[in-house]
Protein backbone atom coordinates (compact mmCIF):
# COMPACT_ATOMS: atom_id res chain seq x y z
CA UNK A 1 0.00 0.00 0.00
CA UNK A 2 1.42 3.33 -0.94
CA UNK A 3 0.03 6.74 -0.21
CA UNK A 4 1.27 9.97 -1.63
CA UNK A 5 0.70 13.37 -0.16
CA UNK A 6 1.15 16.85 -1.42
CA UNK A 7 2.42 19.06 1.37
CA UNK A 8 2.26 22.79 1.95
CA UNK A 9 4.37 24.19 4.75
CA UNK A 10 3.25 27.34 6.54
CA UNK A 11 4.61 29.22 9.49
CA UNK A 12 1.60 30.54 11.34
CA UNK A 13 -1.79 29.67 12.63
CA UNK A 14 -4.06 31.97 10.64
CA UNK A 15 -2.52 31.02 7.31
CA UNK A 16 -2.87 27.31 7.91
CA UNK A 17 -6.48 27.69 8.98
CA UNK A 18 -7.38 29.81 5.96
CA UNK A 19 -5.45 27.56 3.58
CA UNK A 20 -7.07 24.46 4.99
CA UNK A 21 -10.52 25.92 4.63
CA UNK A 22 -10.03 27.05 1.04
CA UNK A 23 -8.38 23.77 0.07
CA UNK A 24 -11.26 21.76 1.40
CA UNK A 25 -13.79 24.04 -0.18
CA UNK A 26 -12.00 23.70 -3.51
CA UNK A 27 -12.67 19.99 -3.41
CA UNK A 28 -9.31 18.51 -2.47
CA UNK A 29 -9.13 15.63 -0.04
CA UNK A 30 -7.30 16.77 3.04
CA UNK A 31 -5.28 13.94 4.51
CA UNK A 32 -4.38 15.76 7.69
CA UNK A 33 -2.88 18.93 9.05
CA UNK A 34 0.17 18.93 11.30
CA UNK A 35 0.72 21.69 13.81
CA UNK A 36 3.08 22.33 16.72
CA UNK A 37 0.16 22.98 19.07
CA UNK A 38 -3.60 22.54 19.05
CA UNK A 39 -5.06 25.17 16.73
CA UNK A 40 -8.60 25.81 17.85
CA UNK A 41 -10.13 26.73 14.51
CA UNK A 42 -8.65 23.81 12.59
CA UNK A 43 -11.17 21.08 13.35
CA UNK A 44 -13.90 23.31 12.01
CA UNK A 45 -11.81 24.28 8.93
CA UNK A 46 -11.06 20.62 8.24
CA UNK A 47 -14.68 19.68 8.71
CA UNK A 48 -13.99 17.33 11.62
CA UNK A 49 -16.93 16.19 13.68
CA UNK A 50 -16.95 17.33 17.28
CA UNK A 51 -15.27 14.90 19.60
CA UNK A 52 -17.51 12.38 21.31
CA UNK A 53 -15.03 11.65 24.05
CA UNK A 54 -17.30 13.34 26.59
CA UNK A 55 -19.86 10.59 26.14
CA UNK A 56 -17.21 7.92 26.39
CA UNK A 57 -16.03 9.49 29.63
CA UNK A 58 -19.58 9.58 30.93
CA UNK A 59 -20.12 5.92 30.10
CA UNK A 60 -16.97 4.88 31.89
CA UNK A 61 -17.90 7.07 34.83
CA UNK A 62 -21.29 5.35 35.00
CA UNK A 63 -19.56 2.01 34.92
CA UNK A 64 -17.38 3.07 37.84
CA UNK A 65 -20.41 4.32 39.69
CA UNK A 66 -22.29 1.05 39.25
CA UNK A 67 -19.36 -1.12 40.23
CA UNK A 68 -18.64 0.96 43.32
CA UNK A 69 -22.22 1.13 44.53
CA UNK A 70 -22.98 -2.50 43.82
CA UNK A 71 -19.81 -3.88 45.35
CA UNK A 72 -20.01 -1.79 48.50
CA UNK A 73 -23.59 -2.76 49.17
CA UNK A 74 -22.86 -6.36 48.39
CA UNK A 75 -19.64 -6.54 50.41
CA UNK A 76 -20.75 -4.59 53.45
CA UNK A 77 -24.41 -5.52 53.47
CA UNK A 78 -24.72 -9.00 51.97
CA UNK A 79 -21.55 -11.03 51.69
CA UNK A 80 -20.21 -10.33 55.17
CA UNK A 81 -22.28 -7.76 56.98
CA UNK A 82 -20.37 -6.34 59.90
CA UNK A 83 -21.91 -4.14 62.54
CA UNK A 84 -19.65 -1.13 62.91
CA UNK A 85 -20.58 1.19 65.71
CA UNK A 86 -24.26 0.45 65.17
CA UNK A 87 -24.28 1.93 61.70
CA UNK A 88 -26.77 0.36 59.33
CA UNK A 89 -25.61 -2.25 56.84
CA UNK A 90 -26.94 0.07 54.21
CA UNK A 91 -24.60 2.99 55.00
CA UNK A 92 -25.11 4.96 51.84
CA UNK A 93 -23.49 8.21 53.07
CA UNK A 94 -20.33 6.31 53.95
CA UNK A 95 -20.25 4.67 50.53
CA UNK A 96 -20.30 7.94 48.62
CA UNK A 97 -16.59 8.81 48.92
CA UNK A 98 -15.46 5.51 47.41
CA UNK A 99 -18.21 5.77 44.82
CA UNK A 100 -16.95 9.20 43.82
CA UNK A 101 -13.35 8.02 43.56
CA UNK A 102 -14.40 5.11 41.36
CA UNK A 103 -16.32 7.44 39.06
CA UNK A 104 -13.21 9.56 38.61
CA UNK A 105 -10.85 6.61 38.27
CA UNK A 106 -12.94 4.85 35.65
CA UNK A 107 -13.66 8.08 33.80
CA UNK A 108 -9.98 9.01 33.69
CA UNK A 109 -8.68 5.60 32.67
CA UNK A 110 -11.50 5.19 30.17
CA UNK A 111 -10.83 8.45 28.43
CA UNK A 112 -7.10 7.72 28.25
CA UNK A 113 -7.71 4.28 26.80
CA UNK A 114 -10.19 5.65 24.27
CA UNK A 115 -7.80 8.39 23.22
CA UNK A 116 -5.09 5.88 22.43
CA UNK A 117 -7.47 3.61 20.58
CA UNK A 118 -9.00 6.45 18.57
CA UNK A 119 -5.69 8.04 17.63
CA UNK A 120 -3.99 4.63 17.19
CA UNK A 121 -1.05 5.82 19.25
CA UNK A 122 0.98 3.34 21.22
CA UNK A 123 4.45 3.26 22.72
CA UNK A 124 7.09 2.83 20.11
CA UNK A 125 4.81 3.59 17.20
CA UNK A 126 6.71 4.75 14.13
CA UNK A 127 4.95 7.25 11.97
CA UNK A 128 6.04 8.88 8.76
CA UNK A 129 7.99 12.07 9.35
CA UNK A 130 5.90 14.66 7.59
CA UNK A 131 8.27 17.53 8.20
CA UNK A 132 11.09 17.70 10.75
CA UNK A 133 9.98 21.05 12.13
CA UNK A 134 6.32 20.22 12.62
CA UNK A 135 6.96 19.68 16.32
CA UNK A 136 8.65 23.06 16.51
CA UNK A 137 7.39 25.93 14.38
CA UNK A 138 5.94 24.66 11.11
CA UNK A 139 2.32 24.05 10.17
CA UNK A 140 1.90 21.49 7.41
CA UNK A 141 -1.15 20.81 5.29
CA UNK A 142 -1.19 17.38 3.64
CA UNK A 143 -3.48 16.69 0.70
CA UNK A 144 -4.11 13.21 -0.71
CA UNK A 145 -2.34 12.75 -4.01
CA UNK A 146 -4.41 10.01 -5.59
CA UNK A 147 -3.81 10.07 -9.34
CA UNK A 148 -1.52 11.60 -11.87
CA UNK A 149 -4.22 14.02 -12.94
CA UNK A 150 -3.71 15.96 -9.72
CA UNK A 151 -3.28 19.60 -10.63
CA UNK A 152 -0.26 20.64 -8.61
CA UNK A 153 -0.02 24.04 -10.23
CA UNK A 154 -3.51 25.03 -9.20
CA UNK A 155 -3.06 24.05 -5.60
CA UNK A 156 0.29 25.80 -5.46
CA UNK A 157 -1.37 28.98 -6.70
CA UNK A 158 -4.06 28.56 -4.10
CA UNK A 159 -1.59 28.16 -1.27
CA UNK A 160 0.61 31.01 -2.37
CA UNK A 161 -2.13 33.42 -1.40
CA UNK A 162 -1.57 32.20 2.13
CA UNK A 163 2.19 32.61 2.13
CA UNK A 164 3.13 28.97 1.74
CA UNK A 165 6.84 28.59 2.46
CA UNK A 166 7.61 25.30 0.88
CA UNK A 167 5.83 22.68 -1.20
CA UNK A 168 6.72 19.03 -1.13
CA UNK A 169 5.56 15.68 -2.28
CA UNK A 170 5.81 12.74 0.04
CA UNK A 171 5.24 9.05 -0.44
CA UNK A 172 4.60 6.54 2.24
CA UNK A 173 6.00 3.11 1.60
Amino acid at each position, binding site marked *: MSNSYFLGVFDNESDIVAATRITRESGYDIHDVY*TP*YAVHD*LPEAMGLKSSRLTWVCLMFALLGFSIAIFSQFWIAGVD*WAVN*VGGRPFNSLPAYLPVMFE*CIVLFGGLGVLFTLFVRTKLYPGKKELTIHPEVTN*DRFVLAVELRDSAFDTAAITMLWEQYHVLEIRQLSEA
Partner: protein
Amino acid sequence: MASTAPEKEDPTAPAPVLGPGQTYTTVTQKISSIITSRTPLGWIIGVALALGLMQCFALGVTWLLIKGVGVWGLNVPVGWGWAIINFVWWIGIGHAGTLISAILLLMRQNWRNSINRFAEAMTIFAVICAMQFPLLHTGRPWIAAYWLLPYPNSMGVWPQFRSPLIWDVFAVSTYFTVSLIFWYIGLIPDFATLRDKAKQKVSRVIYGILSMGWRGSAKHWHNYEMTSLLLAGISTPLVLSVHSIVSFDFSVGLVPGWHATIFPPYFVAGAVFAGFAMVLTLALPLRAVYGLHDFITDRHLNNMSKVMLATGLIVAYGYGMEQFYAWYSASTYEGYMMQNRTWGPYSFEYWMLILCNVAVPQLLWIKWVRLNPIMLFIVSMFINVGMWLERFIIVVTSLHRDYMPSSWDMYRSTPWDWLLYIGTIGIFLLGMLLFIRVMPVINIVEIRLLVPRKGHDKKPDHDASADASAD
Protein backbone atom coordinates in the same frame (compact mmCIF):
# COMPACT_ATOMS: atom_id res chain seq x y z
CA MET B 1 1.22 45.41 16.07
CA ALA B 2 0.43 41.93 17.07
CA SER B 3 3.98 40.80 16.57
CA THR B 4 5.26 42.30 19.80
CA ALA B 5 3.92 41.91 23.27
CA PRO B 6 1.38 44.68 23.77
CA GLU B 7 2.81 47.56 25.75
CA LYS B 8 0.49 48.76 28.42
CA GLU B 9 0.54 52.29 29.62
CA ASP B 10 -1.10 51.61 32.91
CA PRO B 11 1.72 51.05 35.40
CA THR B 12 -0.51 48.83 37.50
CA ALA B 13 -1.25 46.54 34.56
CA PRO B 14 -0.09 42.97 35.11
CA ALA B 15 3.36 41.92 33.99
CA PRO B 16 3.47 39.68 30.92
CA VAL B 17 3.36 35.91 31.32
CA LEU B 18 6.16 35.43 28.80
CA GLY B 19 9.26 37.54 28.38
CA PRO B 20 9.48 39.63 25.19
CA GLY B 21 11.07 38.47 21.97
CA GLN B 22 10.28 34.78 22.25
CA THR B 23 9.39 32.78 19.15
CA TYR B 24 8.41 29.14 18.71
CA THR B 25 12.00 28.21 17.99
CA THR B 26 13.54 30.07 20.90
CA VAL B 27 10.99 28.52 23.22
CA THR B 28 11.77 25.03 21.99
CA GLN B 29 15.49 25.66 22.21
CA LYS B 30 15.48 27.27 25.60
CA ILE B 31 13.40 24.60 27.26
CA SER B 32 15.07 21.63 25.61
CA SER B 33 18.49 23.09 26.30
CA ILE B 34 17.92 22.34 29.98
CA ILE B 35 17.98 18.70 28.98
CA THR B 36 20.52 18.76 26.17
CA SER B 37 23.09 21.01 27.79
CA ARG B 38 25.92 19.68 29.91
CA THR B 39 25.02 18.53 33.39
CA PRO B 40 25.49 21.51 35.70
CA LEU B 41 27.56 21.01 38.82
CA GLY B 42 24.67 22.12 40.99
CA TRP B 43 22.57 19.28 39.67
CA ILE B 44 25.24 16.72 40.53
CA ILE B 45 25.56 18.14 44.03
CA GLY B 46 21.79 18.06 44.37
CA VAL B 47 21.60 14.43 43.32
CA ALA B 48 24.40 13.54 45.72
CA LEU B 49 22.51 15.26 48.51
CA ALA B 50 19.25 13.54 47.57
CA LEU B 51 20.96 10.15 47.46
CA GLY B 52 22.48 10.87 50.84
CA LEU B 53 19.07 11.66 52.28
CA MET B 54 17.70 8.50 50.72
CA GLN B 55 20.22 6.54 52.75
CA CYS B 56 18.35 7.79 55.81
CA PHE B 57 15.22 6.32 54.31
CA ALA B 58 16.91 2.99 53.65
CA LEU B 59 18.23 2.92 57.20
CA GLY B 60 14.88 3.89 58.71
CA VAL B 61 12.96 1.33 56.70
CA THR B 62 15.41 -1.48 57.40
CA TRP B 63 15.29 -0.98 61.14
CA LEU B 64 11.52 -0.56 61.01
CA LEU B 65 11.10 -3.87 59.21
CA ILE B 66 13.44 -5.66 61.56
CA LYS B 67 11.93 -4.34 64.77
CA GLY B 68 8.41 -3.26 63.85
CA VAL B 69 6.57 0.04 64.30
CA GLY B 70 7.56 0.09 67.95
CA VAL B 71 10.72 1.91 66.92
CA TRP B 72 8.58 4.97 66.25
CA GLY B 73 7.54 7.25 69.07
CA LEU B 74 3.99 5.92 69.21
CA ASN B 75 2.37 5.07 72.52
CA VAL B 76 -1.07 4.25 73.74
CA PRO B 77 -2.99 7.47 73.56
CA VAL B 78 -0.95 8.72 70.61
CA GLY B 79 -1.36 5.83 68.21
CA TRP B 80 -0.96 8.07 65.19
CA GLY B 81 2.29 9.94 65.03
CA TRP B 82 4.70 11.11 62.40
CA ALA B 83 3.55 8.58 59.84
CA ILE B 84 0.17 10.22 59.39
CA ILE B 85 1.59 13.71 59.83
CA ASN B 86 4.06 13.13 57.02
CA PHE B 87 1.44 11.42 54.91
CA VAL B 88 -0.92 14.38 55.14
CA TRP B 89 1.92 16.83 54.63
CA TRP B 90 3.08 15.19 51.42
CA ILE B 91 -0.41 14.68 50.02
CA GLY B 92 -1.13 18.32 50.71
CA ILE B 93 1.95 19.41 48.82
CA GLY B 94 0.78 17.47 45.83
CA HIS B 95 -2.46 19.42 45.63
CA ALA B 96 -0.97 22.57 44.15
CA GLY B 97 0.05 20.60 41.08
CA THR B 98 -3.47 19.46 40.36
CA LEU B 99 -4.88 22.86 41.17
CA ILE B 100 -2.52 24.53 38.72
CA SER B 101 -2.93 21.97 35.99
CA ALA B 102 -6.67 21.39 36.22
CA ILE B 103 -8.52 24.21 37.91
CA LEU B 104 -6.51 27.01 36.36
CA LEU B 105 -6.88 25.33 32.97
CA LEU B 106 -10.65 25.33 33.30
CA MET B 107 -10.53 28.95 34.42
CA ARG B 108 -8.46 29.77 31.31
CA GLN B 109 -5.69 31.29 33.41
CA ASN B 110 -2.91 30.93 30.89
CA TRP B 111 -0.17 32.09 33.20
CA ARG B 112 -0.26 28.55 34.51
CA ASN B 113 1.22 27.26 31.23
CA SER B 114 4.78 27.70 32.33
CA ILE B 115 4.49 26.20 35.80
CA ASN B 116 2.00 23.39 35.33
CA ARG B 117 4.40 20.68 34.14
CA PHE B 118 6.70 21.33 37.02
CA ALA B 119 3.89 21.42 39.55
CA GLU B 120 2.39 18.21 38.18
CA ALA B 121 5.73 16.46 38.54
CA MET B 122 5.79 17.70 42.10
CA THR B 123 2.36 16.14 42.65
CA ILE B 124 3.54 12.77 41.39
CA PHE B 125 6.64 12.65 43.58
CA ALA B 126 4.87 14.09 46.60
CA VAL B 127 2.17 11.43 46.36
CA ILE B 128 4.83 8.74 46.01
CA CYS B 129 6.45 10.03 49.21
CA ALA B 130 3.07 10.20 50.92
CA MET B 131 2.24 6.62 50.01
CA GLN B 132 5.33 5.33 51.80
CA PHE B 133 3.82 6.07 55.18
CA PRO B 134 0.51 4.21 55.04
CA LEU B 135 2.37 1.29 53.51
CA LEU B 136 5.17 1.30 56.07
CA HIS B 137 2.97 1.84 59.09
CA THR B 138 1.47 -1.58 58.49
CA GLY B 139 4.89 -2.95 59.50
CA ARG B 140 4.70 -5.59 56.79
CA PRO B 141 4.29 -3.54 53.64
CA TRP B 142 4.71 -6.48 51.28
CA ILE B 143 1.35 -7.77 52.34
CA ALA B 144 -0.25 -4.35 52.80
CA ALA B 145 -1.73 -4.38 49.33
CA TYR B 146 -3.58 -7.49 50.36
CA TRP B 147 -5.12 -5.71 53.35
CA LEU B 148 -5.96 -2.54 51.54
CA LEU B 149 -7.50 -3.75 48.33
CA PRO B 150 -11.12 -4.82 48.31
CA TYR B 151 -10.41 -8.50 48.55
CA PRO B 152 -11.68 -10.73 51.35
CA ASN B 153 -9.13 -12.22 53.72
CA SER B 154 -8.91 -15.88 54.62
CA MET B 155 -11.83 -15.48 57.03
CA GLY B 156 -13.93 -14.02 54.23
CA VAL B 157 -13.96 -10.54 55.81
CA TRP B 158 -13.69 -7.59 53.46
CA PRO B 159 -12.24 -4.13 54.07
CA GLN B 160 -14.46 -1.86 56.08
CA PHE B 161 -16.17 0.54 53.71
CA ARG B 162 -17.52 2.76 56.44
CA SER B 163 -13.99 3.66 57.47
CA PRO B 164 -12.33 6.79 56.09
CA LEU B 165 -9.06 4.87 56.02
CA ILE B 166 -10.37 2.69 53.23
CA TRP B 167 -11.74 5.80 51.49
CA ASP B 168 -8.20 7.08 51.67
CA VAL B 169 -6.87 4.06 49.84
CA PHE B 170 -9.28 4.72 47.00
CA ALA B 171 -8.75 8.48 47.06
CA VAL B 172 -4.96 8.38 47.04
CA SER B 173 -4.64 5.65 44.45
CA THR B 174 -7.17 7.38 42.18
CA TYR B 175 -5.40 10.65 42.71
CA PHE B 176 -2.05 9.16 41.84
CA THR B 177 -3.39 7.40 38.75
CA VAL B 178 -5.28 10.38 37.36
CA SER B 179 -2.41 12.78 38.07
CA LEU B 180 -0.03 10.44 36.29
CA ILE B 181 -2.35 10.17 33.29
CA PHE B 182 -2.76 13.91 33.14
CA TRP B 183 0.97 14.46 33.39
CA TYR B 184 1.80 11.89 30.76
CA ILE B 185 -0.85 13.13 28.31
CA GLY B 186 0.65 16.60 28.63
CA LEU B 187 4.14 15.24 28.01
CA ILE B 188 3.42 13.33 24.78
CA PRO B 189 3.73 16.27 22.33
CA ASP B 190 6.76 17.56 24.19
CA PHE B 191 8.42 14.16 23.97
CA ALA B 192 7.79 14.34 20.23
CA THR B 193 9.57 17.70 20.09
CA LEU B 194 12.50 16.30 22.05
CA ARG B 195 12.62 13.25 19.77
CA ASP B 196 12.84 15.48 16.72
CA LYS B 197 15.51 17.65 18.36
CA ALA B 198 17.56 14.79 19.79
CA LYS B 199 21.11 14.53 18.61
CA GLN B 200 21.96 11.12 20.00
CA LYS B 201 20.37 7.95 18.83
CA VAL B 202 19.62 6.71 22.33
CA SER B 203 17.61 9.73 23.30
CA ARG B 204 15.82 9.69 19.95
CA VAL B 205 14.74 6.12 20.55
CA ILE B 206 13.69 6.69 24.14
CA TYR B 207 11.76 9.87 23.43
CA GLY B 208 10.38 8.15 20.35
CA ILE B 209 8.93 5.36 22.45
CA LEU B 210 7.57 7.78 25.02
CA SER B 211 5.99 10.05 22.42
CA MET B 212 3.97 7.15 21.00
CA GLY B 213 4.50 8.24 17.42
CA TRP B 214 3.04 11.70 17.96
CA ARG B 215 3.24 13.86 14.83
CA GLY B 216 1.04 16.79 15.72
CA SER B 217 -1.80 15.62 13.50
CA ALA B 218 -4.79 17.92 13.79
CA LYS B 219 -7.06 14.91 14.08
CA HIS B 220 -5.03 13.78 17.07
CA TRP B 221 -4.92 17.26 18.54
CA HIS B 222 -8.68 17.40 18.29
CA ASN B 223 -9.19 14.38 20.54
CA TYR B 224 -6.16 15.24 22.62
CA GLU B 225 -7.56 18.64 23.60
CA MET B 226 -10.86 17.06 24.56
CA THR B 227 -9.02 14.52 26.70
CA SER B 228 -7.11 17.27 28.50
CA LEU B 229 -10.30 19.15 29.20
CA LEU B 230 -12.08 16.06 30.46
CA LEU B 231 -9.17 15.12 32.68
CA ALA B 232 -9.10 18.68 34.01
CA GLY B 233 -12.84 18.43 34.60
CA ILE B 234 -12.59 15.26 36.63
CA SER B 235 -9.40 16.30 38.41
CA THR B 236 -11.01 19.42 39.82
CA PRO B 237 -13.51 17.65 42.07
CA LEU B 238 -10.90 14.94 42.60
CA VAL B 239 -8.46 17.35 44.21
CA LEU B 240 -11.23 18.63 46.47
CA SER B 241 -12.21 15.09 47.37
CA VAL B 242 -8.74 13.79 48.17
CA HIS B 243 -7.89 16.19 50.93
CA SER B 244 -11.47 16.17 52.15
CA ILE B 245 -11.22 12.42 52.55
CA VAL B 246 -7.88 12.85 54.28
CA SER B 247 -9.64 15.26 56.62
CA PHE B 248 -12.38 12.66 57.19
CA ASP B 249 -9.68 10.39 58.61
CA PHE B 250 -9.80 12.75 61.56
CA SER B 251 -13.17 14.45 61.52
CA VAL B 252 -15.30 11.33 61.22
CA GLY B 253 -13.81 10.17 64.52
CA LEU B 254 -14.91 11.28 67.95
CA VAL B 255 -11.71 12.76 69.33
CA PRO B 256 -12.04 16.40 70.37
CA GLY B 257 -9.84 18.45 68.05
CA TRP B 258 -10.48 16.03 65.21
CA HIS B 259 -14.21 15.97 65.03
CA ALA B 260 -14.99 19.34 63.43
CA THR B 261 -17.20 19.93 60.41
CA ILE B 262 -14.93 22.70 59.09
CA PHE B 263 -12.20 20.13 58.41
CA PRO B 264 -12.83 19.34 54.72
CA PRO B 265 -12.62 22.87 53.25
CA TYR B 266 -9.98 23.85 55.77
CA PHE B 267 -7.78 20.88 54.85
CA VAL B 268 -8.21 21.53 51.15
CA ALA B 269 -7.20 25.17 51.58
CA GLY B 270 -4.25 24.10 53.71
CA ALA B 271 -3.17 21.64 51.05
CA VAL B 272 -3.20 24.28 48.33
CA PHE B 273 -1.41 26.67 50.67
CA ALA B 274 1.35 24.15 51.36
CA GLY B 275 1.51 23.09 47.74
CA PHE B 276 2.03 26.58 46.41
CA ALA B 277 4.69 27.18 49.03
CA MET B 278 6.49 24.07 47.82
CA VAL B 279 6.12 25.10 44.17
CA LEU B 280 7.80 28.38 45.02
CA THR B 281 10.44 26.70 47.15
CA LEU B 282 11.47 24.65 44.13
CA ALA B 283 10.68 27.04 41.29
CA LEU B 284 12.62 30.01 42.62
CA PRO B 285 16.01 28.22 42.71
CA LEU B 286 15.22 26.49 39.42
CA ARG B 287 14.49 29.80 37.76
CA ALA B 288 17.72 31.27 39.08
CA VAL B 289 19.89 28.30 38.10
CA TYR B 290 18.55 27.82 34.59
CA GLY B 291 17.76 31.46 33.83
CA LEU B 292 14.07 30.87 33.22
CA HIS B 293 13.05 34.44 33.97
CA ASP B 294 11.26 34.74 30.66
CA PHE B 295 9.00 31.84 31.54
CA ILE B 296 8.53 32.23 35.26
CA THR B 297 7.98 35.97 35.37
CA ASP B 298 7.03 38.41 38.09
CA ARG B 299 3.47 37.78 37.09
CA HIS B 300 3.78 34.17 38.20
CA LEU B 301 5.35 35.10 41.51
CA ASN B 302 2.63 37.67 42.11
CA ASN B 303 -0.21 35.32 41.26
CA MET B 304 1.15 32.40 43.22
CA SER B 305 1.67 34.66 46.23
CA LYS B 306 -1.91 35.81 46.02
CA VAL B 307 -3.17 32.24 45.92
CA MET B 308 -1.01 31.51 48.97
CA LEU B 309 -2.34 34.54 50.77
CA ALA B 310 -5.96 33.63 50.03
CA THR B 311 -5.62 29.98 51.04
CA GLY B 312 -3.55 31.03 54.06
CA LEU B 313 -6.41 33.24 55.18
CA ILE B 314 -8.85 30.33 54.86
CA VAL B 315 -6.51 28.24 56.99
CA ALA B 316 -6.35 31.04 59.54
CA TYR B 317 -10.15 31.17 59.44
CA GLY B 318 -10.13 27.46 60.22
CA TYR B 319 -7.91 27.99 63.30
CA GLY B 320 -10.17 30.81 64.44
CA MET B 321 -13.35 28.81 63.99
CA GLU B 322 -11.86 25.87 65.88
CA GLN B 323 -11.08 28.18 68.78
CA PHE B 324 -14.44 29.91 68.77
CA TYR B 325 -16.62 26.83 68.41
CA ALA B 326 -14.55 24.88 70.93
CA TRP B 327 -15.75 27.48 73.38
CA TYR B 328 -19.23 27.89 71.90
CA SER B 329 -19.84 24.14 72.01
CA ALA B 330 -19.81 24.40 75.81
CA SER B 331 -18.33 20.91 75.81
CA THR B 332 -15.77 20.27 78.54
CA TYR B 333 -13.66 18.09 76.28
CA GLU B 334 -13.65 20.51 73.36
CA GLY B 335 -12.84 23.38 75.67
CA TYR B 336 -10.05 21.53 77.40
CA MET B 337 -8.59 20.35 74.10
CA MET B 338 -8.31 23.94 72.90
CA GLN B 339 -6.90 25.20 76.14
CA ASN B 340 -4.37 22.36 76.15
CA ARG B 341 -3.46 23.04 72.55
CA THR B 342 -2.93 26.73 73.17
CA TRP B 343 -1.30 26.68 76.60
CA GLY B 344 -0.45 23.03 77.28
CA PRO B 345 2.81 21.14 76.83
CA TYR B 346 2.75 21.57 73.06
CA SER B 347 1.97 25.27 73.16
CA PHE B 348 5.38 26.13 71.70
CA GLU B 349 4.55 24.12 68.58
CA TYR B 350 1.11 25.72 68.46
CA TRP B 351 2.43 29.25 68.57
CA MET B 352 5.15 28.41 66.05
CA LEU B 353 2.36 27.18 63.81
CA ILE B 354 0.49 30.45 64.23
CA LEU B 355 3.68 32.34 63.47
CA CYS B 356 4.46 30.31 60.35
CA ASN B 357 0.98 29.94 58.91
CA VAL B 358 -0.86 33.03 60.07
CA ALA B 359 1.58 35.80 60.95
CA VAL B 360 4.36 35.45 58.38
CA PRO B 361 2.09 34.97 55.32
CA GLN B 362 0.53 38.36 56.06
CA LEU B 363 3.71 39.80 54.55
CA LEU B 364 2.23 38.76 51.22
CA TRP B 365 -0.14 41.72 51.38
CA ILE B 366 2.91 43.80 50.44
CA LYS B 367 3.59 43.86 46.74
CA TRP B 368 7.31 44.19 47.24
CA VAL B 369 7.39 40.90 49.11
CA ARG B 370 5.33 39.21 46.42
CA LEU B 371 7.82 40.23 43.75
CA ASN B 372 11.02 39.67 45.70
CA PRO B 373 12.27 36.11 45.12
CA ILE B 374 14.33 35.99 48.30
CA MET B 375 11.51 37.19 50.52
CA LEU B 376 9.12 34.87 48.79
CA PHE B 377 11.45 31.95 49.31
CA ILE B 378 11.68 32.75 53.01
CA VAL B 379 7.92 33.05 53.38
CA SER B 380 7.46 29.75 51.52
CA MET B 381 9.88 28.00 53.84
CA PHE B 382 7.92 29.28 56.82
CA ILE B 383 4.75 27.89 55.30
CA ASN B 384 6.35 24.51 54.58
CA VAL B 385 7.32 24.24 58.21
CA GLY B 386 4.03 25.68 59.42
CA MET B 387 1.92 23.20 57.52
CA TRP B 388 3.91 20.32 58.96
CA LEU B 389 3.39 21.75 62.44
CA GLU B 390 -0.33 22.11 61.75
CA ARG B 391 -0.67 18.37 61.21
CA PHE B 392 1.51 17.71 64.21
CA ILE B 393 -0.74 19.84 66.38
CA ILE B 394 -3.90 18.25 65.06
CA VAL B 395 -2.64 14.69 65.45
CA VAL B 396 -0.66 14.89 68.67
CA THR B 397 -2.39 17.44 70.86
CA SER B 398 -5.79 15.92 70.19
CA LEU B 399 -4.68 12.41 71.05
CA HIS B 400 -2.29 12.85 73.92
CA ARG B 401 -4.97 14.12 76.28
CA ASP B 402 -8.45 13.04 75.36
CA TYR B 403 -11.40 11.84 77.40
CA MET B 404 -9.59 9.82 80.09
CA PRO B 405 -7.00 11.67 82.17
CA SER B 406 -5.74 8.34 83.47
CA SER B 407 -4.36 7.46 80.07
CA TRP B 408 -2.86 10.83 79.22
CA ASP B 409 0.69 10.67 77.99
CA MET B 410 3.28 12.70 76.15
CA TYR B 411 4.41 11.95 72.64
CA ARG B 412 8.08 12.11 71.67
CA SER B 413 9.42 11.28 68.24
CA THR B 414 12.42 8.97 67.88
CA PRO B 415 15.40 9.21 65.49
CA TRP B 416 13.66 6.58 63.33
CA ASP B 417 10.79 8.99 62.75
CA TRP B 418 13.27 11.62 61.66
CA LEU B 419 15.16 9.26 59.38
CA LEU B 420 12.04 8.25 57.51
CA TYR B 421 10.80 11.80 57.15
CA ILE B 422 14.14 13.12 55.94
CA GLY B 423 14.42 10.08 53.73
CA THR B 424 11.23 10.92 51.88
CA ILE B 425 12.55 14.42 51.27
CA GLY B 426 15.46 12.66 49.58
CA ILE B 427 13.09 10.60 47.42
CA PHE B 428 11.23 13.75 46.47
CA LEU B 429 14.38 15.70 45.63
CA LEU B 430 15.83 12.87 43.60
CA GLY B 431 12.62 12.52 41.66
CA MET B 432 12.45 16.22 40.92
CA LEU B 433 16.11 16.39 39.90
CA LEU B 434 15.83 13.44 37.55
CA PHE B 435 12.68 14.95 36.11
CA ILE B 436 14.44 18.25 35.45
CA ARG B 437 17.25 16.45 33.71
CA VAL B 438 15.32 14.22 31.35
CA MET B 439 11.94 15.81 30.77
CA PRO B 440 10.88 19.26 29.61
CA VAL B 441 10.44 21.12 32.84
CA ILE B 442 8.10 23.60 31.19
CA ASN B 443 5.30 22.60 28.88
CA ILE B 444 6.69 23.56 25.46
CA VAL B 445 3.40 23.17 23.64
CA GLU B 446 1.49 25.39 26.01
CA ILE B 447 4.20 28.04 25.97
CA ARG B 448 3.80 28.14 22.19
CA LEU B 449 0.28 29.36 22.87
CA LEU B 450 1.72 32.35 24.70
CA VAL B 451 4.07 33.30 21.88
CA PRO B 452 2.74 36.36 20.05
CA ARG B 453 1.18 35.30 16.77
CA LYS B 454 2.96 36.06 13.55
CA GLY B 455 1.74 38.07 10.66
CA HIS B 456 -1.82 38.22 9.54
CA ASP B 457 -3.65 37.24 12.68
CA LYS B 458 -6.62 39.14 13.84
CA LYS B 459 -6.35 37.71 17.29
CA PRO B 460 -3.25 39.05 18.96
CA ASP B 461 -3.25 36.85 21.97
CA HIS B 462 -5.01 33.63 22.45
CA ASP B 463 -6.45 34.40 25.81
CA ALA B 464 -5.73 38.04 26.28
CA SER B 465 -8.86 38.47 28.28
CA ALA B 466 -8.50 35.53 30.56
CA ASP B 467 -4.98 36.73 30.90
CA ALA B 468 -5.97 40.07 32.28
CA SER B 469 -8.32 38.42 34.68
CA ALA B 470 -5.47 36.52 36.24
CA ASP B 471 -4.36 39.57 38.10
